[in-house]
């Protein structure tokens, strides 16, 4: 601005003379005082109407210049030279008259400067060198602009041309929230923005960019005004209502609302559904729910990490279990931020209830050295769970280098479970070996509270950081249950040779409380390398007790304690862990890290009733390394190694006696060693933007020393007794590859996925070692033809092959193919109609063990009609499983048994729904 005040219009005597027919401007520049010619002076021609640059030239050694191809019309000539004041004048260029401007005299800035007077006004200082005005304390009419506001502020003047002077100096920059180039038109911020959007006006001297950069104060300071925007400018609400029914037995209803004012957010929702919706999905959770439990942190060296604080199986958005669920869900959330977002609070309450009715059949085939064995299990169950939960997160950004975060969650819940099952074991020839009929029921109360405190601090040296984490976790479960079972064992002739019945009540109580602390320190070794130290201490105290009661002689009440089946244990685990990691990163080239942790775990289990205890400890190792290489062609190669030892659990060493299933019993193994697992992963990814080709491959290999397996004794009565043992040589190998490519004509996206895995698993059967080798391979192309807002067709077939051979019966391999064909189509129709349909054909090859037909064609379709302004409402007619063929299906191929499970799941239903999205957004329009 100072320079602008220096802008000098020299009215020197020049004349416009016409020589030839060219649109060319010529002339020369000369110093006023020294009368010498000026080389390299810039002569620019601007269009007068909008000051757009239409041509420029520099003067030659003699000070002469020639501007060619200058369009006709009114123009401005601007002549500038670093040491001279600007020369500006108007020139009219006509089609017929080339212009010679003759000699133009320039005046040195040093002479001009003498005439420049700096006026001084006494500034109002509030914080350091910053003067701050609170905008609301100055009365203004509605609709006033920022300029009107500035005029009211003491110490600030705005002249008729909009030029601002603060504290006697011309204001060089007007920033909005610290950003100079806030809008596309930076010059008119003050005249076009409404004053009620402004919270504070700050006036300060901004050092030059160079001084800021070098730290060397060059004395250049610019008077700057920074307009801080109000935070609560945004005010409004949005929400969603959905109601759906088949007018018979299915319903799916929900209401969601979020009202916001600035940073404050208040939201609530209610959902009731028996079509599988059990909570907010990802999108809804973003709008109406609390924090997603996702955590993000950086390692001090600039690499970002994500971790998700896992909820439990009761927190999902849709039902994945077996059976038919009915769910009720309601919640409320409050969140706010204060003090420039430095402090934030997020709290919520949620009620959940889920009732599930299920029925299923499992058929299993056991492979014994000399024979085969079949078990069929048929059962049904009912469960009801209720939970009330509260959660809160408080975050405090103490200063730019340190932060504190406190989170707490608590819930209380009730659950009821009922199970009836009938199971039969058959020998190779289909004759009964044993049968069981079991009925269990239980009612449980549970409580939990957990909290954590995280403190992070960045120290002065870049890359040097400290983080501390303290956490606590407490859970308590009390349950009362009943067990009724009848077991029958058969002889060769098919006659019952022995039978047992159980009729007991069981009172369980389980408490676990954990405290842990972790400290991490990172030290930069160089710009690229970082060393990380970590230490953690974890103490877990648990107590579990079970009291088994049976009916007294002749009585109907369960009152006699069965001593052998009642117990009271405490389990304490103390873990100390220390680790060291080295990380190196060279952007766009290579990233690698290696290191590991070593930890000692001390276990102590006390039998409180018998006053005895078992104590043992293990030292565990966790080595790891990874390399990420970016090739010159942009492809990425990633290698990862991970090793960890795992100590056997105390239950594997010495289990607590349990009679809930007499046909499956466990015994302990005090000689069990810890296992050591190593995983290797290698992947290669590349993507080409213009050809839209992607290639993704990955190999993984894992091997385990002293893996835990189980010896299964199948006794004379056909009971399965298992004991954990160590085995050698368990390993698995996997491959995945994917390729996708966009075809130009037709408009087709093709991709191909292939995967393969092979596993070797060692186990025991009747003390005989069995090695099971299994192999899986799958391949599936995918074809997509889509046009935005028009249509989308997808066809995705997938073929899988499974083979499993056990070493004790290599003559009895299991192998089968399964196929799945998925077809999807969506079409936008006139009258705001949209039709979507998909169909999945599942073909499962029958095997000797599984001769049931489990092929299913699942066909769904829906028709949507949009209406209201901005298509805010949708009327939807949907049909699920139109052919009424759906079944729950799962096939397992394990070391020495194969099983197939089918269970009840949703079958055909139709539903008519209305979905309405509404909103009122209070964001004021920026002019």
């Amino acid at each position, binding site marked *: 601005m100072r320079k602008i005040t220096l802008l000098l219009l020299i009215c020197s005597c020049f004349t416009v003379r016409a020589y030839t027919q060219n649109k060319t401007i010529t002339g020369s520049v000369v110093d006023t005082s020294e009368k010498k010619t000026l080389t390299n002076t810039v002569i620019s021609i601007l269009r007068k109407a909008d000051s757009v640059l239409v041509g420029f030239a520099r003067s030659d050694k003699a000070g002469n210049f020639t501007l060619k191809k200058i369009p006709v019309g009114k123009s401005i000539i601007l002549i500038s030279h*670093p040491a001279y004041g600007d020369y500006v004048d108007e020139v009219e260029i006509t089609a017929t008259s080339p212009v010679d401007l003759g000699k133009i005299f320039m005046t*040195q800035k040093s002479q001009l400067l003498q005439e420049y007077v700096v006026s001084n006004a006494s500034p109002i200082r509030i914080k350091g060198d910053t003067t701050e005005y609170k905008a609301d304390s100055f009365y203004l009419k509605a609709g006033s602009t920022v300029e009107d506001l500035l005029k009211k502020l003491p110490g600030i003047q705005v002249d008729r041309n909009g030029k601002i002077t603060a504290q006697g100096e011309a204001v060089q920059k007007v920033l909005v929230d610290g950003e100079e180039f806030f809008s596309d038109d930076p010059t008119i911020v003050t005249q076009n923005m409404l004053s009620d959007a402004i919270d504070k006006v700050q006036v300060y001297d901004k050092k030059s960019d*160079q001084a800021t950069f070098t730290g060397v104060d060059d004395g250049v300071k610019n008077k700057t005004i920074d307009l801080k925007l109000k935070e609560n400018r945004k005010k409004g609400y949005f929400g969603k209502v959905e109601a759906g029914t088949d007018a018979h037995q299915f319903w799916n209803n929900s209401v969601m609302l979020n009202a916001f004012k600035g940073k404050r957010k208040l939201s609530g929702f209610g959902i009731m559904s028996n079509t599988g919706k059990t909570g907010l999905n990802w999108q809804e959770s973003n709008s109406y729910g609390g924090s997603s439990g*996702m955590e993000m942190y950086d390692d001090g060296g600039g690499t*970002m990490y994500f971790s998700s604080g896992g909820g439990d199986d009761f927190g999902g958005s849709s039902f994945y279990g077996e059976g038919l669920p009915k769910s009720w869900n309601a919640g409320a959330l409050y969140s706010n931020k204060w003090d420039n977002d430095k402090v934030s609070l997020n709290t919520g309450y949620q009620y959940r209830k889920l009732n599930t009715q299920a029925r299923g059949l499992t058929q299993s085939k056991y492979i014994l050295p000399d024979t085969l064995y079949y078990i069929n299990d048929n059962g049904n169950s009912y469960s009801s769970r209720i939970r009330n939960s509260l959660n809160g997160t408080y975050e405090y950004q103490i200063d730019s280098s340190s932060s504190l975060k406190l989170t707490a969650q608590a819930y209380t819940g009730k659950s009821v479970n009922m199970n009836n099952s009938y199971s039969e074991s058959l020998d190779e020839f289909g004759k009964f070996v044993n049968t069981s009929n079991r009925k269990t029921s239980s009612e449980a109360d549970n409580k939990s509270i957990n909290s954590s405190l995280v403190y992070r601090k960045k120290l002065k040296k870049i890359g040097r950081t400290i983080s501390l984490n303290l956490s606590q976790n407490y859970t308590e479960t009390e349950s009362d249950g009943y067990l009724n079972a009848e077991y029958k064992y058969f002889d060769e002739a098919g006659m019952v040779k022995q039978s047992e019945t159980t009729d007991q009540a069981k009172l369980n109580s389980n408490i676990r409380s954990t405290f842990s602390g972790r400290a991490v320190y990172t030290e930069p070794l160089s710009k690229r390398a970082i060393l990380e130290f970590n230490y953690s201490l974890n103490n877990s105290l648990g107590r579990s007790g079970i009291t088994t009661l049976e009916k007294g002689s002749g009585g109907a009440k369960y009152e006699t304690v069965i001593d052998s089946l009642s117990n009271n244990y405490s389990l304490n685990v103390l873990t100390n862990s220390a680790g060291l990691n080295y990380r190196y990163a060279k*952007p766009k080239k290579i990233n690698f890290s290696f290191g590991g942790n070593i930890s000692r775990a001390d276990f102590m289990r006390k039998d409180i009733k018998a006053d005895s205890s078992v104590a043992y400890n293990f030292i565990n190792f966790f080595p790891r390394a990874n390399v990420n290489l970016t090739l010159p062609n942009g492809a990425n190669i990633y290698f990862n190694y991970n090793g960890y030892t795992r100590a056997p659990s105390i239950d594997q060493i010495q289990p607590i006696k349990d009679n809930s299933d007499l046909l499956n019993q466990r015994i302990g193994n005090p000689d069990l060693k810890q296992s050591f697992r190593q995983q290797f992963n290698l992947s290669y990814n590349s993507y080409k933007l213009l050809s839209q080709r992607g290639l993704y491959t990955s190999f993984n290999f894992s091997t385990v020393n002293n893996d835990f397996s189980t010896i299964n004794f199948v006794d004379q009565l056909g009971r399965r007794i298992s004991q954990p043992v160590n085995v050698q040589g368990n390993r698995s190998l996997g491959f995945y590859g994917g390729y996708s490519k966009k075809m130009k004509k037709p408009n087709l996206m093709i991709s191909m996925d292939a995967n393969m895995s092979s596993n070797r698993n060692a186990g025991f059967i009747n003390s005989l070692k069995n090695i099971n080798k299994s192999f899986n391979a799958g391949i599936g192309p995918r074809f997509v033809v889509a046009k935005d807002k028009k249509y989308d067709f997808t066809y995705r077939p997938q073929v899988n092959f499974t083979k499993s051979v056990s070493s004790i019966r290599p003559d009895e391999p299991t192998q089968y193919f399964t196929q799945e064909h998925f077809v999807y189509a969506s079409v936008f129709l006139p009258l705001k109609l949209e039709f979507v349909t998909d169909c999945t054909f599942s073909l499962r090859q029958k095997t000797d063990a599984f001769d049931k037909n489990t092929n299913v064609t699942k066909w769904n379709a829906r028709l949507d009609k949009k209406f209201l302004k901005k298509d805010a409402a949708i009327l939807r007619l949907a049909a699920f499983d139109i052919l009424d063929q759906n079944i729950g299906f799962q096939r397992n191929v394990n070391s020495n048994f194969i099983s197939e499970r089918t269970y009840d799941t949703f079958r055909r239903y139709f539903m008519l729904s209305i979905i309405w999205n509404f909103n009122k957004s209070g964001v004021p329009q920026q002019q």
Partner: protein
Amino acid sequence: MNLKLIMLVLLVSFTTCSFAQTGGVPQFISKGKIEYERKTNQHAFMDENNPWDAMMKKNLPKFVTYYFDLDFDKSHSVYKPGREPEQRQNKYWGIFDADNIISTDLDSNMSITQKSIYGDTYLISDTVRKIDWKISTEIRKIAGFDCRKAVGKVMDSIIVIAFYTDEILATGGPESFAGLPGMILGIAIPRMHTTWYATKLQLVDVSANDLAAPKKGKKYAGNDFRSKLTEILKGWGPDGVRRQWQMML
């Protein structure tokens, strides 16, 4: 310490060449090396009401800063990535994914750009972008030079604010910006929340080797490349529009 000393020396040398107002003929610079600092306010791209973005905002710094070098003589310039930033820059997804080496022939107004996007390299020959610059009276000091402000528009609607200095004879600038009566030492693009500012100028001898055009990459003509990129990014939503602007700079 050493660095500061060098900066100081550089500063002094700028001062002598640019503040030569006390009479005598100022030294006009016809070749050298300029370092630009590109600063992007990535918080501006994050939506407060999206929990993912809110988390990113909390964890990623407000500005990401990268450095670029421009070697130039009177008629040629080559713009390419410069020194590594002091601190590793944690960049939000999709902010300046393209790396450019741009060589410009300022006499013939032709440029050759080697663009690397997700590792793929393209070699694009094009004419220098024609911009209608509105010249203003505002002068600002950048890296010790008095620079005049000019406002222009690219890609139909993106406003570009440029600051150029008369004291450098070459008419180039950072990225593909050129065509003002001197060297562009500062560029601001509000819509991209990004500025490019020169931090220093070294009066070094620039050889023909330094000014050699890049040669690597799949060859494209400027228009073909742009229409292809537009076509592909059309399906990427509003995010794609932002990337498109950045990739076409």
